[in-house]
C-alpha cells in the first residue's frame, strides 16, 4: 500500500513541472500564438533559477529569476512574431535552439555547484493521514499552487471579461481588432505570461526537482508540455490531468521495472506522444470539433489594417 502512496506522490511531483509549463503555453496558444521555444525557455530559466539559488540561497527568488528569464525570451519571440510577423513555428524552433546553447554557455561555471539541503514539506495535520497523507500532502508548496492556479485560470478564461477578450483574440483577431481591442499588445502580454510560467517550470526543475545544473537537463520536458497543451484541447483542467498522466507514465515505468514486470520502457516513453496524436486525429476529423476545440487563429499571422 505504501508504495502506491509514494507512487502517487512522485506522480504529482513529476506532473507539476509539465502542468506549470502546459498552463503557460495554454495562455500563449489561447491568444493564437504557438511558441515552440518552450524547451529553450525552460533551459534558460533553469540556469537562471539555479544560479540565483546558488548566489542568494532563496528558492523563491530563484523562481522569480526563472520567470523573468522566461518572460524576457518570450518577449523577444513575441516582438519577432507579432510585429515583424515571422513564421511562428520557425521562430519558436530558433528560440528553442538558442535557449539550449545559451543556457549551456552561461551554465559552464555552475556545473560543479550544488545547493544547500532541500527542506522537507508536509501539511501539518493532513500529512499524517495513513494513505492520503504521504500520497497528497507532503509536497513542495508549488504543487498546491499549481492546482490553485489552474482553478484561477479556468475562472479567468471563462468567467472574466479579460479572459473573454483573450479568447476572442485567439478565435478571430480581425473581429477583436474591429471592435477596437489592441490585439497585438494583448498577444504580447499573453506570450510573456506564458513564457514566465514556462520559466517557473524550468526553475522548478533545477531548484526543486533535480537540484543541480547540467547542460540539457530539462531533457525534453518542454516538448512534452507543448504536446500536452494540444492533448488537453486547450482546457486548463485537462492540462492538469494530462500533466499528471504524462508524469505518471514515467514513474509507472520505473515502478514496474522495479517490480520486475517486463513492459518495454521505450514503449511507455512513447505513450504521451501517441496519445497526443490520437487526440489530434480525433478532433480533426470533424470541422465542427476543430472549431470548438482549437483556437481558430492558432499559428496564423495577424496583419491589422490589411
Amino acid at each position, binding site marked *: 500500500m505504501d508504495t502506491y502512496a509514494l507512487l502517487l506522490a512522485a506522480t504529482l511531483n513529476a506532473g507539476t513541472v509539465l502542468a506549470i509549463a502546459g498552463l503557460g503555453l495554454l495562455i500563449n496558444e489561447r491568444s493564437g500564438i504557438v511558441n515552440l521555444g518552450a524547451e529553450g525557455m525552460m533551459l534558460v530559466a533553469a540556469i537562471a533559477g539555479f544560479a540565483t539559488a546558488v548566489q542568494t540561497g532563496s528558492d523563491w527568488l530563484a523562481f522569480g529569476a526563472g520567470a523573468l528569464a522566461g518572460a524576457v525570451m518570450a518577449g523577444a519571440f513575441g516582438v519577432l512574431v507579432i510585429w515583424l510577423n515571422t513564421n511562428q513555428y520557425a521562430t519558436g524552433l530558433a528560440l528553442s535552439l538558442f535557449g539550449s546553447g545559451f543556457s549551456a554557455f552561461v551554465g*559552464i561555471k555552475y*556545473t560543479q555547484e*550544488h545547493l544547500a539541503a532541500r527542506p522537507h514539506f508536509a501539511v501539518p495535520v493532513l500529512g499524517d493521514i495513513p494513505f492520503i497523507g504521504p500520497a497528497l500532502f507532503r509536497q513542495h508548496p508549488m504543487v498546491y499552487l499549481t492546482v490553485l492556479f489552474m482553478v484561477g485560470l479556468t475562472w479567468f478564461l471563462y468567467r472574466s471579461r479579460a479572459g473573454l477578450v483573450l479568447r476572442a483574440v485567439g478565435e478571430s483577431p480581425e473581429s477583436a481588432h474591429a471592435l477596437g481591442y489592441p490585439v497585438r499588445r494583448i498577444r504580447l502580454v499573453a506570450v510573456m505570461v506564458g513564457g514566465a510560467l514556462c520559466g517557473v517550470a524550468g526553475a522548478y526543475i533545477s531548484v526543486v526537482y533535480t537540484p*543541480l545544473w*547540467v547542460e540539457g537537463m530539462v531533457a525534453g520536458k518542454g516538448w512534452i508540455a507543448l504536446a500536452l497543451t494540444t492533448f488537453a484541447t486547450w482546457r486548463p483542467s485537462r492540462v492538469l490531468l494530462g500533466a499528471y498522466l504524462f508524469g505518471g507514465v514515467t514513474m509507472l515505468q520505473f515502478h514496474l521495472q*522495479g517490480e*520486475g514486470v517486463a513492459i518495454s520502457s521505450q514503449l511507455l516513453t512513447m505513450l504521451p506522444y501517441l496519445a497526443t496524436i490520437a487526440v489530434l486525429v480525433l478532433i480533426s476529423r470533424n470541422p465542427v470539433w476543430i472549431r470548438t476545440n482549437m483556437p481558430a487563429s492558432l499559428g496564423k499571422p495577424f496583419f491589422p489594417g490589411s
Partner: protein
Amino acid sequence: MTTSTRRSVLRTTAWSSLAVAAALAGCSKKEEAAPAAASEPAAASAAAAPASSASAPLKIAFAYLGPVGDGGWTFAHDNGRKALEKELGSQIQTTFVESVPESADAERVFRDMVAQGNTLIFGTSFGYMEPMLKVAADNKAVHFEHATGYKTADNMRVYDNRTYEGAYMAGVIAGGMTKTNTIGVVGSIPIPEVIRNIDSYTLGAQSVNPKIKVKVVWVNEWFNPPKETEGAQSLIDGGADVLLQNTDSSAVLQTAEKNGKYAFGWDSDMTAYGPKAHLASSVNIWGPYYIKAAKDALAGTWTTGHTWWGVKEGAIDLVSISDKVPADLKAKVDKVKAGLKDGSFAIWKGPIKSNDGKEQLKDGVTADDAFLGGIKFFVKGVEGQVPGNK
C-alpha cells in the same frame, strides 16, 4: 510599422547578426593547452611518421560524450587528460571536444581532429566505435584509441576500466550498511558492462550479507538527470536504501540525500553533491593509461590490442569512504583492494548461478576476460530480467 520600415529593420538586424556570428566564430569552443605557435599543415603531420622529431609536440585530441562539468564520466576523462599534460608537458599538446553525440556527427568531429594535425585520438564512449573505424581506415598514420568498445584495427585499439571492481567494493559496503536488505541500482543501457556492474555489486553485497535483494531500474540513457532522479525515487519508494548508479550525473546521489538514504558516487568523487548520503565513490582514473598511450606514440612502440586495467594498475579505486562506514567493513574493503592489487583475489569465481537457476560458473573456475565481456545474465539475488532477453 510600414512595410518599408520593417524591411530596413530586418536588413539591419540581419547584417548585424551576421557580423556578430562572424566575430564569435573566431573564438573556438575547443581549448588549446598551449597556444599553437605555428599551425602545422594538416597533410604534413598526417603523413609524418609517429616517431616525430623532438621539436614538434605530439598533438593529442579527446572526444567526450558529455560536458566536462558533468561531475561524472567525462569529468574523470578530463582529469586523465590533465594528468597527462602534467606528466608530459611540452612533449605533447592536447585539445578536446565535448558533448560529441554518438551519431554520424561524431565522424565529422574525428575527421576534423585528423585535419587539425592530431596523431593520437581518444574516443571516450562506446557509441563512437563505427565512426572511429571509418576514420581510422582513411587515416592509417593516425592512432585511434576507443574506450569501452570491442572492434579494433591496425591503427585503432580498445581500452577499458574494470569498473566492476569498483562496483564490487561498493557492494561490500552496501551489504553492510543496508537496514532493509534491499539495495538498488539505477542502470543506464543494458550492455554487458552495466549488467556486469550490477552483478558485481550484488556479489559484493552478498559476500557480507547473503540475505540482500537487488532492484534495478533502467533509464535507457547514459545521461538524463531528471529521469535518473525519477528512477532513484522509484527504487527508494520500493524499499531500497543504498543506491548504486551507472549513469553519468549526480542526480541519484542527490535523490538519496533528499530521502535520507545512502548512495555511491560513480566515475568521479561525488562527495560534495550529497554529503550525508555519500558512502564512497568508485572512480575511474584514466591518467595512467593516457600517459602510457602517449608514451607509446612518442616512442613509436604503439601497437593495436585491447587493454583492460583495474585496481591493480591504478585505474579504478573506491575513494572518500565515509566515516559512517564502520571500521570492520572498511577493513573488508581494504582486504579486497589488496587482493585485487596483487592478483590473489578474483571477484568472478565459481560457483555462480544466474537468477533463473542456471549455473553460469562452475565451482572453483575463475572467469576469463572473454566470459566477463559477454555477461548477459543477472546473478541470483537480482530481481527481474535483463531487458531484451526472453
